[in-house]
């Protein structure tokens, strides 16, 4: 779509306790822009569509090449990375920018996703090595397994999966697909799997694996195309078998 101006409608909020409000902006069009570069233009000239001076819009971004996970926001209602949202590929006008709705807003489009890292702690998303010293070559690991595990390991904790999940909300204790996916990842690693049962224990209580209702929006929302629903199904298998074992060997 060619245009003279890029028309943005942004949901703004001055601080966590204040009410949100909408502000519109018109930024001169250049080819090959993305949502981040448009926001950068606003910073250089913080004037809204009505020609009034305003404060620069606050948002998070870092790598700008979709590997850091910082710039998640809702763009025309869909959670995605602002850096890879190319203006030339967005047909709608105005382009509506909103912060992710499942996390507390810090300011404007900036949100607090600390809880996702807390979930990683909860599920023990690490290989419990004895120490960082040199013990010689690590265990052999089949390339075939490595290839799918690598897909899982590319999760950048961006929050799009949680944003789109109908069962991830303030009524539910669900930890969501990202942390579950890490459980599958570490349970596949030759050393990581030694703590497999600890991780499964962590996801078999309230808020764990059973809260998934298979709406499968997560796999569609994931910018890294991680097969989150496969991870969850695989963990279903792992937890069912482990649950039986836990019971029968009591």
């Amino acid at each position, binding site marked *: 779509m060619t245009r003279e101006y890029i028309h943005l409608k942004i949901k703004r909020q*001055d*601080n966590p306790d204040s009410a949100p409000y909408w502000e519109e902006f018109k930024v001169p069009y250049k080819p*090959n*822009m993305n949502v981040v*570069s448009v926001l*950068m233009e606003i*910073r*250089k000239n*913080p004037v809204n569509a009505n020609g009034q*001076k305003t*404060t*620069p819009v*606050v948002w*998070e*971004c*870092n*790598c*700008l*090449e*979709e*590997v*850091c996970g*910082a710039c998640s926001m809702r763009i025309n209602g869909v959670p995605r990375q602002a850096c*890879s949202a*190319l203006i030339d590929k967005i047909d709608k006008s105005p382009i509506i920018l909103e912060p992710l709705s499942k996390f507390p807003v*810090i*300011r*404007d489009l*900036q949100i607090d*996703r*600390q809880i996702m*890292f807390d979930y*990683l*702690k909860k599920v023990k*998303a*690490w*290989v419990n*090595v004895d*120490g*960082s*010293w*040199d*013990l*010689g*070559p*690590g*265990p*052999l*690991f089949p*390339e075939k397994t*490595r*290839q799918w*595990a*690598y897909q899982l*390991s*590319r999760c*950048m*904790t961006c929050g799009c999966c949680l944003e789109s999940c109908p069962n991830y909300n303030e009524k539910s204790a669900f930890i969501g697909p990202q942390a579950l996916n890490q459980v599958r*990842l570490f349970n596949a690693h030759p*050393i990581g799997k030694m703590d497999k049962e600890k991780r499964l224990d962590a996801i078999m209580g309230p808020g764990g694996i059973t809260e998934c209702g298979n709406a499968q929006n997560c796999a569609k929302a994931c910018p890294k195309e991680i097969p989150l629903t496969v991870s969850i199904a695989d963990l279903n298998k792992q937890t069912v078998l482990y649950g039986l074992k836990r019971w029968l060997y009591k």
Partner: protein
Amino acid sequence: MAEKKIIVVGGGLSGLMATIKAVERGVKVDLFSLVPVKRSHSCCAQGGINAALDTKGEGDSTWEHFDDTIYGGDFLANQPPVKNMCDAAPGLIYTMDRMGVMFSRTPEGRLDLRLFGGVKKRRTVFAGATTGQQLLYACDEQVRKWEDAGMVKKYEGWEFLSAVIDDQGVCRGIIAQDLATMEIRAFVADAVLLATGGAGMIYGKSTNSVINTGSAASAVYQQGVYYANGEFVQIHPTAMPGDDKNRLMSESARGEGGRIWTYKDGKPWYFLEEWYPAYGNLVPRDIAARAIFKVCVEMGLGVDGENKVYLDLTHKDPEFLDNRLGGIIEIYEKFHGDDPRKVPMKIFPSVHYFMGGIHVDWNHQTCIPGLFASGECDYMYHGANRLGANSLLSALYSGTVAGPAMVDYIEGLSKSSKDVDKKHFERELKRQQEWHDKILKMNGYENPYKLHEEMGDIMTENVTVVRYNDRLKATDEKLQELIQRWHKINIEDTSSWGNQAVMFTKQLWNMLQLARVITLGALNRNESRGAHYKPEFPERDDENWLKTTKAKYTPDGPVFEYEEVDTSLIKPRPRKYDVDKEATMND
């Protein structure tokens, strides 16, 4: 004895590794980072990490790795620390492998190796084309484990403002600011490590992340730390130019068989292969960047008349590409639209890495006792040009040196920082609070982001691939003008909550100071060495310039000193890539 504490500033690979090493020695760490550490810039590293594992029957050795690194760096690096790094590399890789990094494997399940620039043997371990991300995540996970165990406390979303230095000149803590609440606070520590990365933002657009302003390094430079070899800035030959940043297209693309070409007389011209038959497309980055620059800017042979050449992978099997280079193929597809499996990528050189940085001793301590630096923000391992896949190695390795060195340092301290007179902290806190309040009141007419753009433009124009003294002089004058105009900024946003503009204005001040160090360092160095190339002085001049540049801050601008380079292990020899390395050894 009071419990001693270490502060690590920066949660990239180096900071995280130093944290792990310090915690393993039983010392608690407060970890400060602008962003959640998992989002640090290390995640952008793509191609791999070097270690002479010699698992391909090529007779590789750590000495060979060491020699390639010194030779590739045009002999400017002090040699013993580089040798130590290369010797430690295999063990470090094995450790990372145990921590769960999804390194690509051979059919028998061992670590696979690939070829990289400036070398002739396969030495680069990799995880697809997102090796940095994978290494970063492994360290992030280990630190999370320690956080869970109560040994690490993270301050994510905090910005380092300055070091607290007592009257004896010893570092006793830091001043940091919460980016949401804007609270400025003093933190006590017995040793402080800066692992704050590079400074690509000085050039406006680079392959760096937006947090890579070099602001922290500049802040301690302004507090008396030396900044070394600032003029050595790596220009990566293959990046995809963009409106907001230049996106890296990893050297591993060429390591896996990618070819660089453009049209000449209507036919594809593989100029790197023609000019450098011994190394072909895998010449080091400074060489490749200059060649592309020459073809486009001097010969006017860029693709479609623009400053771009082809990086071609279309002759490779698509499945092979997805498996080995998936990460960059995805980036190119998403941000450019074309499919690199079918259409050659269009690339141009871009600012990428800072070989220079904070001057440290071989234990990574600065001239201020108790203040350490590691990772890209130090100057140690790459000399005048860094070899591809050595940055992840130096980031990790320097962390393994700095962490234990800090513990050794604090064990030898007679007085804990907790017992130091509070006035030192209050004094520095007051200085930073006043600086903040002053910026918040700025109501001139300049926009900080526009000033930044001007700085980036002139730096990119004059202080990158090819450097001329008259232009460097003009650049420094422009930088001084920008510093004057900085005082005329209108802050626009006076909010006391989540104010990004005021933080950026502080960073901009620091970037401008560092930009002068880079520019004047380049102006002074009348020779060509590694990434620093002056057509007026096209030869390397060991007699006068085999020296480390050391810049010291004064309010009137940087003052330069020079230090001998330790070349005790490998005698400097001419560096040329049209012939094999062995041929240069007889010169």
